[in-house]
């Protein structure tokens, strides 16, 4: 298990050497981009909790009936529910897995972990970040001072406690995490994949650098000229990116900084339905909202115009001052 997770450097470099990192347009549809996600892969998700969740891409991956995905995200919420509930994933790596602070425990997660043998592999929030960062730096580990002494550490033989060769202090070395594919949603990028991210970055930059391929969904595709006018606003460079998909409201019903807040009526209804019946409630939700719609636009229509407008009005208010 551990061996499978930590790629030797030569393999990491070989994978990279094979990747097409040339300056080229890579705009495609959700359907096409989903081909980068194959059964059994390690998938890293951008954003955190209910923010900039790459929901449209997750939605498409579930529609394409992927299986056995090992999914990592710094903090995972209803996206984790959908991945477990649909059968797309049987292993989630995260620091926290619930339906959001307002609703607490996920009965879906509990059902799948407590009775279905699925795995929720827990690391501290910083440790998840250091694992991506090590992956993005091309080193096999980073040293940290968290998790020491806790049972969280004792459950993670993948990490190694050492005595610092300089100071003798106890340190925990957390292994690099290089997902096979990262799904990241951004406010805007160009056709090459040069991406700007407004506001909260979470771990997306490290994740993009660490992953062996990146699917970028974006609220809006802008010209390369626009990117080049403010090169210090680019957060992810194009050569990390393998697919660009324009998906307005691509984090719905979660939020996207500066554009829309979470769609709370939909979230409330969702939580009530799946927490009251994590099996049938989830099945019905997936049928209606994931498998049912013919397109992402049709999915947004099901959430409803009023929700979208309200979330957008609240989303833009971050800039009012």
């Amino acid at each position: 298990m551990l061996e499978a997770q930590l790629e030797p450097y030569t393999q990491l470099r070989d994978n990279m050497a094979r990747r097409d990192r040339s300056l080229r347009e890579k705009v495609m549809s959700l359907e096409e981009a989903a081909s980068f996600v194959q059964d059994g892969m390690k998938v890293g998700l951008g954003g955190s909790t209910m923010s900039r969740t790459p929901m449209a891409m997750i939605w498409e991956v579930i529609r394409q009936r992927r299986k056995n995905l090992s999914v990592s995200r710094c903090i995972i919420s209803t996206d984790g529910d959908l991945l477990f509930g649909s059968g797309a994933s049987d292993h989630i790596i995260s620091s926290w897995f619930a339906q959001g602070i307002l609703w607490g425990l996920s009965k879906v997660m509990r059902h799948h972990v407590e009775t279905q043998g699925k795995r929720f592999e827990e690391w501290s929030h910083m440790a998840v970040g250091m694992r991506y960062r090590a992956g993005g730096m091309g080193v096999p580990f980073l040293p940290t001072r968290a998790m020491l002494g806790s049972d969280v550490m004792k459950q993670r033989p993948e990490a190694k406690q050492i005595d610092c060769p300089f100071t003798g202090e106890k340190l925990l070395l957390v292994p690099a995490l290089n997902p096979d594919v990262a799904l990241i949603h951004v406010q805007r990028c160009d056709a090459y994949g040069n991406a700007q991210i407004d506001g909260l970055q979470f771990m997306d930059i490290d994740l993009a650098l660490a992953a062996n391929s990146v699917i970028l969904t974006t609220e809006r595709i802008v010209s390369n000229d626009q990117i080049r006018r403010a090169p210090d606003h680019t957060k992810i460079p194009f050569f990390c990116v393998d697919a660009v998909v324009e998906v307005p409201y691509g984090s719905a019903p979660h939020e996207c900084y500066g554009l829309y807040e979470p769609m709370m009526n939909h979230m409330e209804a969702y939580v009530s339905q799946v927490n009251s019946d994590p099996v049938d409630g989830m099945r019905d939700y997936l049928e209606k909202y994931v498998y049912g719609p013919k397109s992402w636009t049709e999915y947004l229509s099901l959430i409803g115009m009023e929700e979208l407008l309200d979330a957008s009005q609240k989303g833009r208010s971050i800039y009012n001052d």
Partner: protein
Amino acid sequence: MTEAHSYTASEMLAILSARQLRDGQVVFAGIGVPLLAATLAQRTRCPALTILFEGGVIGAFVEPGKLPPSTNDQRCTKRANMVLGSADVLLLLQRGYVDVGFMGGAQIDQYGNLNSSFIGDPAKPKTRLPGTGGGNDISSLTNMIVAMKHEKRRFVENVDFITSPGFIRGGDTRRESGLPAGGMFRVITELAVFGFDDTSKRMKVLALNPGVSREEVQDNTGFTLQFDDRTEVTPPPTEHELQTLRLLDPERLFTA
């Protein structure tokens, strides 16, 4: 107590927690009562208090009536001094920039260890809880204030699982585990304010909440509590504290 019915237990928690903060401190606050309490402190006695959120925010000013649904949402960033990556804001704890970590708790033990991962045997858990989030990082790397509900099943002798370390097994075991900095500083409940013995690192009662007896606290606690000789009684919430708090959370999202 004439004030007995004029505030909720959560309001009491938030107000007593806010009183633990000092002006000028850098406070890493979790969602819910911690966020409310830190904001309350900032708007009453501590204008130079700096609040950090796990989502990657430094110096937030939460807008009254617009509490964020988590510390990873954009509402946390309004009028902040800085927004940065979430690994980077957690690293500030490791470097030592943070004075106080402030969070809620589901289960705590005599040494201030917190469990938010498992109820029952982790190998075959009765309940799989949400996990650590940044809790382990915060409690490993700075001084902690925990605000939580006081119930016997939550105040246990030893937690089922140490998610966020307090003093581990007491004495020097925290330092010996590789955590030389920080540690559990205060636990605030609707019954009392707790500290930890300098040597044994066991929880002790520092002050009783208004109208609460020693027996009531002990009866609701799953281990034997130490009481300070000079155990005080906390002054009740003031009108100013209550008004400010209710302005922050008019919908009682976190203070019902």
